[in-house]
């Protein structure tokens, strides 16, 4: 930025020299002046910018202008004199909150967002002490139709973040403002229940909703009940992305690895076995890498797409039903794991699968619905019985009275507890494909891979590509995270213009570290990056960093499954997809 592009402004009498292309909000931040915001959200890394300027909580006084202006979208200009804390600005801001609250069920006690709610904290920050303008309140039915998302429009403040997320970032087009004026609300087409829509349950709308208008279905009570039932053998598995995020719920710095504390906490909650979904991830790599090589060698459909993200799977079923032969048929890691628990593990320990309860702790909301898919539940009682999110696990740990911060470390249980660095990085965008390449490389070349880190596959760009030389072949790899980016890649495949052999897709921006079930980042996307760094660090700390070197996985094949991608593996670890309507 050259000197000419700098301009001079005053904020609350503080003279400032700032770039000419920033907003008043950004300028105020530089001056150490805090302007409250509610609807505004600008996640640079995740490419989400909600600029509807609808809440009017950030209004400030501009000398020389009649009405107040919203700081979140108003650009600075030379000579601007801004008052963020004049009585007029403060009163108008408070009015906005009071008006919102006048049309709000003020039931914070029992609300899933209690103490995590941006509206609630603003009411406190702005010193709202009474709601002067009471009047009629909109009344809506809560939408409890889906297994993943609860929609409660009574608590919606029309910030439109969810719409921007769903339509612009995820391009799912599920949510729209409906009606107008006081009666307006946000919902799917024809106001149908979420379960009837083509919602992917990626949960990204949930992760940006400032209130409890969109939340996950809470399954913690089911877990408590299972734990209390003496006839049940309750097994828990935790996804890779949990360990680098759960600490945030207990005031631990983002990016801290808390695997050991998490395992201790789970053990103190009296789960009968505490396992790592990473094991399932290694299993996935065994299957997926074999399938990939098989497709390469037998002229199968290429590119092959990864399939461990259920939101992404649902997306392709609704939006690109003509491409259903492209994704790998591998079930997702936690489902594979559930299957193994209900078969191999049950046999080995002489347990009746009916009495085993598998609980998955996931960064993900979509996995709640995935676990209920008919083709994944028909054979073995249910493969995964209950899915809870990182946030729900955090809440349970608090309920159990466990002081998380001071816990000692412990190790996952065996025999399904051994994991590799490859499986850990499943939790970030680029990780699945990197893990697969570590295995595919060695299998195809028969040589040892010395440099296991494929840094060309890493990063936060929405779509990345790289070519990896394996023997005499160039394997062209594409990576997309966020469903909008996935759409771009899929359109290319549909039009026969995709140059790739293998593609990794994750529905959530950033991958599972940014999943819809993770602790709320409240607009600070640096947190997501820190989680990513932590996963790579965990990978580096592992002795074994390739899935096919996981001894317990190899033993599983030897004792039970037979060949990777063989008949039994196929029956137990693979699945199929079906064409679904688009609404």
């Amino acid at each position, binding site marked *: 930025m050259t000197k000419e592009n700098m301009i001079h402004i005053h904020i609350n009498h503080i003279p400032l020299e700032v770039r000419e292309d920033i907003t008043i909000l950004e300028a105020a931040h530089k001056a150490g002046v805090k302007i409250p915001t509610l609807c505004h959200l600008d996640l640079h890394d995740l490419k989400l910018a909600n600029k509807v300027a609808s809440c009017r909580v950030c209004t400030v006084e501009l000398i020389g202008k009649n009405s107040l202006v919203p700081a979140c979208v108003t650009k600075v200009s030379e000579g601007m004199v801004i008052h963020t804390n004049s009585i007029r600005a403060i009163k108008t801001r408070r009015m906005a909150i009071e008006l919102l609250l006048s049309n709000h069920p003020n039931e914070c006690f029992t609300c899933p967002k209690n103490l995590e709610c941006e509206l609630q904290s603003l009411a406190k920050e702005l010193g709202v002490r009474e709601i002067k303008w009471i009047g009629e309140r909109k009344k809506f039915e809560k939408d409890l139709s889906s297994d993943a998302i609860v929609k409660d429009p009574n608590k919606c403040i029309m910030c439109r973040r969810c719409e921007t997320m769903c*339509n612009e970032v995820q391009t*799912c*087009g*599920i*949510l*729209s*403002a*409906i*009606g*107008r004026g006081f009666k307006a609300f946000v*919902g*799917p*087409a*024809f*106001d149908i229940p979420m379960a009837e*829509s083509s919602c992917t349950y990626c949960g990204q709308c949930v992760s940006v909703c400032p209130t409890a208008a969109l939340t996950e279905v809470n399954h913690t009570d089911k877990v408590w009940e299972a734990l209390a039932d003496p006839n049940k053998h309750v097994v828990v598995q935790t996804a890779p992305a949990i360990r680098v995020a759960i600490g945030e719920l207990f005031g631990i710095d983002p990016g801290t690895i808390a695997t050991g504390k998490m395992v201790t906490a789970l053990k103190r909650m009296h789960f009968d076995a505490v396992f790592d979904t990473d094991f399932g991830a290694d299993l996935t790599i065994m299957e997926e890498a074999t399938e990939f090589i098989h497709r390469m060698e037998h002229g199968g459909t290429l590119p092959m797409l990864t399939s461990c993200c259920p939101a992404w799977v649902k997306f392709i079923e609704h939006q690109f039903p003509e491409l259903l032969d492209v994704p790998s048929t591998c079930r997702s890691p936690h489902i594979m794991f559930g299957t193994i628990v209900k078969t191999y593990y049950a046999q080995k320990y002489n347990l009746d699968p009916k009495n085993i309860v598998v609980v998955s702790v996931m960064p993900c909301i979509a996995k709640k619905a995935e676990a209920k898919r008919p083709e994944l539940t028909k054979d073995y009682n249910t493969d995964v019985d209950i899915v809870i999110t990182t946030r729900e696990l955090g809440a349970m740990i608090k309920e159990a009275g466990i002081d998380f911060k001071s816990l000692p470390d412990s190790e996952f249980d065996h025999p399904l507890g051994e994991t590799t660095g490859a499986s850990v990085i499943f939790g970030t965008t680029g990780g699945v494909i990197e893990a697969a390449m570590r295995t595919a490389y060695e299998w195809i070349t028969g040589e040892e891979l010395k440099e296991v880190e494929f840094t060309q596959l890493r990063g936060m760009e929405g779509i990345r590509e790289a070519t990896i030389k394996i023997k005499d072949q160039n394997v062209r790899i594409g990576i997309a995270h966020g469903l909008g980016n996935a759409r771009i890649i899929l359109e290319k495949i549909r039009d026969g213009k995709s140059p790739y052999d293998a593609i990794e897709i994750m529905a959530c921006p950033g991958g599972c570290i940014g999943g819809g079930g993770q602790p709320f980042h409240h607009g600070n996307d640096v947190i997501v990056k820190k989680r990513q760094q932590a996963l790579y660090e965990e990978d580096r700390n592992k002795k074994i960093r390739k899935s096919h070197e996981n001894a317990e996985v190899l033993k599983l094949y030897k004792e039970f499954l037979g060949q990777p991608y063989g008949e039994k593996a196929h029956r137990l670890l693979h699945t199929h997809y079906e064409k679904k309507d*688009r*609404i």
Partner: protein
Amino acid sequence: MPNVQIEPPHSDLPREKFEQLSSYIDSLDTARGALIEILHKAQDLFGYLPRDVQLFVARKIGIPAAEVFGVVTFYSYFTTSPKGKHTISVCMGTACFVKGSDEIFQAFKEKLNINSQETTKDGLFTLNNVRCIGACGLAPVVMVDEKVYGKVTLEDVEHIINTYRKEDSI
């Protein structure tokens, strides 16, 4: 506009109207930005915009159904329920209001025993209040279908209703 083949939904709505709508959409240079025109056309054809029609439009032009529904519910001109044989629109614009159109409206509500936006049981009348139809010189104004009645008095209300009732019973 690329010719996208979308099968009309299996519904009670007449298939040929879907075909007409489809060829109207195909005749546009581009469907980009044309949603409102398309919905006008659809409402002309079907008389209202039922769910199947909205879904058809969404799929045909390749936009989310939620977006179509969001637009349909934003504009008061669009309706999602079938209308009566005759639409009675009472002007509630300012010029008409200060000349007492609220009382006229009230009288229609009572005589027809329905509320605004509702249709009588026999399917004969739908009652609407509109905001100025540009005939303020004749305030208060009532419009039945395309016909405008100016300087309407309370006594005229019964008479207007009966005109259409009679016409219909013939």
